[in-house]
């Protein structure tokens, strides 16, 4: 097991009170496998990812409970100094918006070399050679010249490739991709996804792929975990969940994705809004928006019920 997250709780102090952004999340990722983490904005996907790196916003964010086991080592117990040796080298992350992910005042080479230097040591030779290598890995044309370019001289897609190169420069085992294509033009989204998949296969990466788009999940992921209001409500192999989603929220999410083959007059949507995280309803958090809701749903949070070998859903209506 490459990554094993157990019962992770992360809280954020905001001006409205403490928010349980990640509230008892568990999942695992094998080497070479891709787990999709799906949910609406504000469901806690990004917070989960940042928790793994121990980079929650300071000083508001805090991991209050749980374990993050990377190759069996618990990251939650590590010191900041130890974490720095893990970030970039063993876990890396690609952020959502390439326009702002790169520092505008340094050239690209500088920013890649910097990532390499942290892990290979100040005196390591041939850092620029390796940086060129890193760019070649993400299929950037004329990498040698690109190293001297500044971010504003590149297109969005190119920048996101550079961010990928930085993330992969130190050959990590686990890559977190946080909606890496959301900010890209539709035409280059697919290109980028294919690139990620290709690199993953070559490097044997484990990947945590965060998205809100089930179309991308189908293309990229082996397994998927659906998050709602800080908790995972359903998880399982992509194939199985696509065939038969068991949680009403998963079903609703999938139904709201437009499909080419079906002729629909109006896309179904989920009524209401996700609950405010500082005022969560007592029972199932999806209850206020759920069409199958009954009394018990409003009172008690449902336990995760196993359906088949690795498929589980947290809903009272799911019979094992």
């Amino acid at each position, binding site marked *: 097991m490459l990554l094993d997250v157990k019962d992770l709780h992360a809280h954020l102090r905001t001006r409205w009170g403490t928010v349980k952004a990640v509230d008892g999340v568990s999942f695992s990722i094998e080497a070479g496998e891709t787990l999709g983490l799906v949910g609406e904005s504000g469901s806690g996907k990004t917070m989960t990812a940042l928790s793994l790196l121990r980079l929650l916003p300071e000083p508001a964010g805090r991991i209050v409970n749980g374990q993050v086991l990377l190759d069996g080592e618990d990251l939650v117990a590590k010191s900041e100094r130890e974490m*720095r040796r893990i*970030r970039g080298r063993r876990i890396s992350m690609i952020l959502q918006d390439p326009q*702002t*992910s790169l520092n505008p*005042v340094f050239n690209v080479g500088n920013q890649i070399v*910097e990532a390499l230097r942290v892990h290979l040591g100040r005196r390591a030779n041939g850092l620029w050679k390796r940086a060129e290598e890193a760019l070649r890995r993400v299929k950037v044309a004329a990498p040698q010249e690109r190293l001297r370019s500044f971010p504003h001289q590149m297109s969005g897609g190119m920048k996101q490739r550079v961010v990928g190169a930085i993330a992969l420069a*130190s050959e990590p085992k686990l890559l977190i991709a946080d909606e890496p294509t959301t900010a890209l033009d539709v035409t280059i989204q697919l290109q980028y996804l294919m690139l990620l998949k290709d690199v993953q296969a070559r490097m044997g990466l484990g990947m945590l792929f965060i998205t809100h788009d089930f179309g991308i999940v189908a293309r990229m992921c082996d397994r998927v975990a659906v998050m709602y209001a800080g908790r995972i409500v359903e998880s399982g192999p992509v194939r199985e969940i696509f065939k038969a989603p068991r949680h009403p929220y998963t079903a609703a999410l999938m139904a709201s994705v437009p499909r080419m083959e079906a002729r629909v007059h109006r896309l179904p949507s989920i009524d209401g809004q996700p609950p405010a995280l500082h005022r969560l309803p007592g029972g199932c958090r999806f209850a206020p928006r759920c069409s199958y809701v009954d009394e018990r749903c409003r009172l008690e949070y449902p336990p995760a019920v196993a359906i088949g070998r690795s498929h589980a859903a947290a809903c009272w209506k799911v019979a094992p």
Partner: protein
Amino acid sequence: MQRFILRRFFQSLVVLLVVAVVVFALARVTGNAADLLLPEDAGREDREHLLKALGLDRPMHEQLARFLKGALSGDLGMSIRYRKPAVEVFFERLPNTLTLVPIALLSAIVISIPLGLLAAVYRGTIIDRVSGAIAVLGIATPSFWLGIVLIYIFSIQLGWLPSARMGGPAHYILPTITLAAFLVAGMMRLVRSSVLEVLNSEFVKLARIKGLSQTVVIWKHCLRNALIPVVTLFGVFFALLVTGAIVTETVFAWPGVGRLTYEAVIFRDYPLLQAVILLKAMIVLGVNLAVDILYAYLDPRVRYS
């Protein structure tokens, strides 16, 4: 890049011309140009004589042409008080200001940038609060009064430091504090808010993801970006500094061009005032041009466009 600087250069020339015309026009619009240019005790004949000599009986555009021509050749009239060419008086005093202003500017930068940075990084802590309080007080304190209070405490009551005029290093301490104080307040707030913005940016997050230490993240990734707005607003700060120098030099009887400006006002020495203003305008515009070049160096987005 070169075009950018060239364009700025021409803009500066235009500003200078506008200032010259304003100064010229103000002396004439009021209809008593001769009075402004004459000592108060001048007689009637002097007046007639001056009108002729300065061509004030000529049409306006001719006078303007003559004024500008004179200005170009370095002739901005005679100071009434010093009975010397005004330009000459200015350049006699300039070195004294050039020893004071750069020291004050440097102190302000050395104090306010680290303090603003620390206030942002340790937001909400005691450092942030103290520097915030200093900034609020610094902005509300008129610098002429600060100077007087400093003189009262350190020269008169404690007797530690000289209160006026130039001299050894000790003479620089109080004027430097006075001149730097309000710059520190303004710069510190600016650095703090721009560092806060940068700290929240995605590239800082990526830098942390790479595994960089807090020190590298702050001093490499934040500082340079946070300095851009400071450099952008440097022109404004420099303008404040020139203003502050007038007041500070007046309070400390410092024989520089700031004090000269004050003297020109107090003695209603219009030729001197107009020379001081045009020459100061030239210096300010020159400095701003230099800052634009520095700005292009700091921010590659400007350098390569």
